[in-house]
């Protein structure tokens, strides 16, 4: 394959009301390679991709973009797509009630004079699905697919547009290990077909596996570009460039001080809310002690989130049975409000959908779960509320100009810190953190681990649900493994390895 540059972005500067989001980023992408872009939250990765794809039109930024040797000035996404540049965002943009085929050709329908040729549409969709390795009927509605499969539909859609440069923003953030592995081999496969890929990712293992080149961006500047077949291609090196400081170890040190049993759940069984014959959680029993961090491992769809949400005020599922004991006494929690009163907190895995009021500022989000603490006779002491929010902003190192900043405009890591602040302020005894570091860069992850450790040190019982096994092993004292709704294993973290966990995680499957 010819070794030519397909994309050259030179000295890109983009500012928002005087704040420079990009301050001289340059990136050269070679035709047919997989080029990873790494950087901390707010480093400017997404902004850079928006500049490239025309979301920010030519003229609204400084610097030059050359694609296939010619300078380009994209005014809209359509312009860049016409040249074969397709971007797949972290939040997938498919229409749930339309079929796979309809989604693939949305805006690009096979039609004569406005009448759609369904046979051609479905036939071509089937071919594209075969190319991405998705075994589904093209007429299946997208809402029936899991996130992993939806991602493949997005890629099929990109292929239908004769994509030359495919940009994937955090493609595996919401995928389980299986789906991630499939996606990564698909990217390698596409590279074999001459499609160039830019992949934005925080997962260094992934990058090591598939990227040919890595460009690290920090504070809106290109820090360095590393060839992955060279001697510099180590995780430590990439991390150092990203955060600009050495991370001695990935997990902050901790001396566990484990006390009495705080939470005991026995025979917890939950049925699916719609498909009421299906057991989502099957007779799960577990305990958590004060000061202990207990991990929950499991593949996506194994029932981890469902277990947590059904405990937290029955916010998921039907026909729930089983008992919950707190400090030895059986308790009932029929609503979220009761759960909070019993000292429970649950930080959701989907912070944008379930965790935050994105149009509200930091203040109202931090106080949202414990307004009662700030109110007398139903009247909120707003001055105290402000002080509380501000103290969390400082304590948790939430990077925002003030607590009046709108949470929707914060980066993922800072949003997560707002969610954690909210639940810490609620003053729980038992915290359930569902994927607390999803979609968050290395530096912020480290800070969040520190926060979790501190909560345990204060004697709280902490449950961490995570898809990242090294994270569970590094953080927890004890790990439960859930597979197809059943608890299939319990391992002391000291004895845990990724292999043993994976063994239990797949225990129910043949």
């Amino acid at each position, binding site marked *: 394959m010819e070794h030519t540059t397909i994309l050259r972005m030179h000295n890109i500067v983009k500012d*928002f*009301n005087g704040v420079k989001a990009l301050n001289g980023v340059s990136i050269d992408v070679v035709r047919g390679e997989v080029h990873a872009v790494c950087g901390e939250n707010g480093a400017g990765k997404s902004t850079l991709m928006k500049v490239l794809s025309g979301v920010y039109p030519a003229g609204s930024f400084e610097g030059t973009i050359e694609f296939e040797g010619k300078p380009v000035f994209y005014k809209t996404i359509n312009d860049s797509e016409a040249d074969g540049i397709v971007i797949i965002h972290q939040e997938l943009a498919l229409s749930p009630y339309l079929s796979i085929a309809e989604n693939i050709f949305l805006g690009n329908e096979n039609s004569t004079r406005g009448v759609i040729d369904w046979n051609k549409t479905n036939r071509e969709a089937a071919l594209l699905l075969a190319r991405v390795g998705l075994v589904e009927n093209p007429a299946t509605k997208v809402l029936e697919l899991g996130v992993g499969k939806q991602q493949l539909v997005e890629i099929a859609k990109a292929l239908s547009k004769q994509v030359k440069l495919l940009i994937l923003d955090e493609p595996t953030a919401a995928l389980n290990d299986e789906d991630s592995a499939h996606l990564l081999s698909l990217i390698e496969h596409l590279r074999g077909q001459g499609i160039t890929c830019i992949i934005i990712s925080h997962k260094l293992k992934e990058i090591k596996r598939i990227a040919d080149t890595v460009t690290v961006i920090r504070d809106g500047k290109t820090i360095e570009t590393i060839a992955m077949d060279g001697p510099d291609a180590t995780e430590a090196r990439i991390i150092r460039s990203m955060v600009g400081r050495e991370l001695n170890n990935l997990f902050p040190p901790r001396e566990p001080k484990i006390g009495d049993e705080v939470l005991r759940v026995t025979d917890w069984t939950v049925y699916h809310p719609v498909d009421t014959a299906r057991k989502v959680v099957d007779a799960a029993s577990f305990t958590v002690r004060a000061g202990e961090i207990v991990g929950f491992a499991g593949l996506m769809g194994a029932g981890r989130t469902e277990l947590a949400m059904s405990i*937290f*005020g029955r*916010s998921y599922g039907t026909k729930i049975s089983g008992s919950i004991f707190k400090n030895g006494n059986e308790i009932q929690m029929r*609503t*979220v*409000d009761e*759960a*909070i009163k019993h000292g429970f907190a*649950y930080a*959701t895995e989907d912070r944008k*959908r*379930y*965790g*935050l*009021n*994105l*149009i*509200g500022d930091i*203040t*109202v989000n931090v*106080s*949202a*779960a414990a*307004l*009662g603490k700030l*109110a007398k006779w*139903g*009247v*909120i002491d*707003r*001055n105290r509320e*402000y*002080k509380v929010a501000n103290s969390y902003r*400082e304590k948790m*190192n939430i990077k925002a*100009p*003030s*607590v*009046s900043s709108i949470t*929707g*405009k914060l980066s993922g890591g800072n949003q997560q810190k707002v969610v954690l602040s*909210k639940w810490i302020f609620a003053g729980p005894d038992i915290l359930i953190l569902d994927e607390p570091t999803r979609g968050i860069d290395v530096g912020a992850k480290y*800070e969040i681990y*520190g926060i979790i450790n501190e909560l345990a040190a204060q004697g709280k019982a902490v449950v961490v649900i995570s898809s990242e096994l090294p994270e569970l092993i590094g953080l927890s004292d004890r790990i439960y493994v859930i597979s197809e709704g059943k608890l299939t294993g319990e391992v002391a973290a000291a004895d845990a390895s990724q292999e043993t966990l994976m063994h239990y995680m797949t225990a129910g499957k043949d």
Partner: protein
Amino acid sequence: MSTTTPVKRAKPRFTVSLRQYGILAALAIIIVLFQILTDGRLLLPGNVNNLIQQNAYVLILAIGMVIVIIAGHIDLSVGSVVAMVGAVTAISMGSWGLPWWAAVVIALLVGALVGAWQGFWVAFVGIPAFIVTLAGMLIFRGLTLVLLTGGTISGLPSEFTAIGAGWLPAWLGEVGGRDVLTIALGVLTALALIVQQLRTRATLLKLDLPREPIVSLWVKNGIAAVAIVWFAWLLSGYSGTPIILIVLAMLILGYTFLLNQTVFGRHVYAMGGNLFAAKMSGVKTQWVDFFIFVNMGVLAGLAGIVSTSRAGGAVASAGQNYELDAIAAVFIGGAAVTGGVGTVVGAVIGALVMGVLNMGLSILSVDAAWQMTIKGLVLLLAVAFDIFNKRRAGGR
């Protein structure tokens, strides 16, 4: 954890949003424009008085409606509720011979019942408010017709008609044909405003919280104070302070407090901003929805009292299109169609914009058909302007 960078003195947190200044400016421009077009007739004392008394019902409904809309709902039934409550009030005084205050209590109770009925379907059964209140619009209009089969009921007691069409007595006498009480109330209100603002600022200063620069505080409240006194001056030259103005002032203050300072108000905003997140934070969303509609029902009942009182009787066709007036006022006042955003003051200003337009166009003897067309365009432009502003402000 890394060290926090020292942050500059944070911006004042209660700056009225730009959109609200925008709508205030629009109101000022419309007033000046019509004042010129009508050769100064718009702000004749009589017209200013009528502006309040004629539009009181929209203001009341808009206050309830803004809460409904912030929570992400809509209420199409309020016009019919106004008519039905009017009928009940008139019957209770005319046929049953009840005193005026008992009729008022019954009217508010009927409003609350209607609200509870609709709130039940929205909150606990889960039917979208659009459908529930569309049904309500038909149901309560139908019931009004049933109640008023005997035709129009008029001849209501003067205490009752005073609510919508009367004035405070001239307790302090008159000087040069002007009601002293009205001027005194105006001056007192202006002073109270400034004192309250200064005290709030003093508290913030004491607690070392970010606050508005003193200059902008004085300029803003100075203008507001002058406007209040001038307004009182105009009213004093007619018949004094409309009783309904006192009611309105209390409602505006009370509901602004409710939305800004109470847990209930915060829950309304939280639900409009992200219903799921509110639920997962322990907000009892069903009960909040229920009470939002009960409250809307009570305010619709009040609007029914006011419009019946001003009209001096109940007719089956009363309240037609009132829901649209209220909804338009709320959106002109800067509420978001998607919920989560809106203020009582915005809704009130929105209602005044519509009111001034109505009055100005009437003075100019513009045909009613054209008035309607112009109002429709203003609603569209106001929301379009708002969206344009939001984009320019660099939303995502």
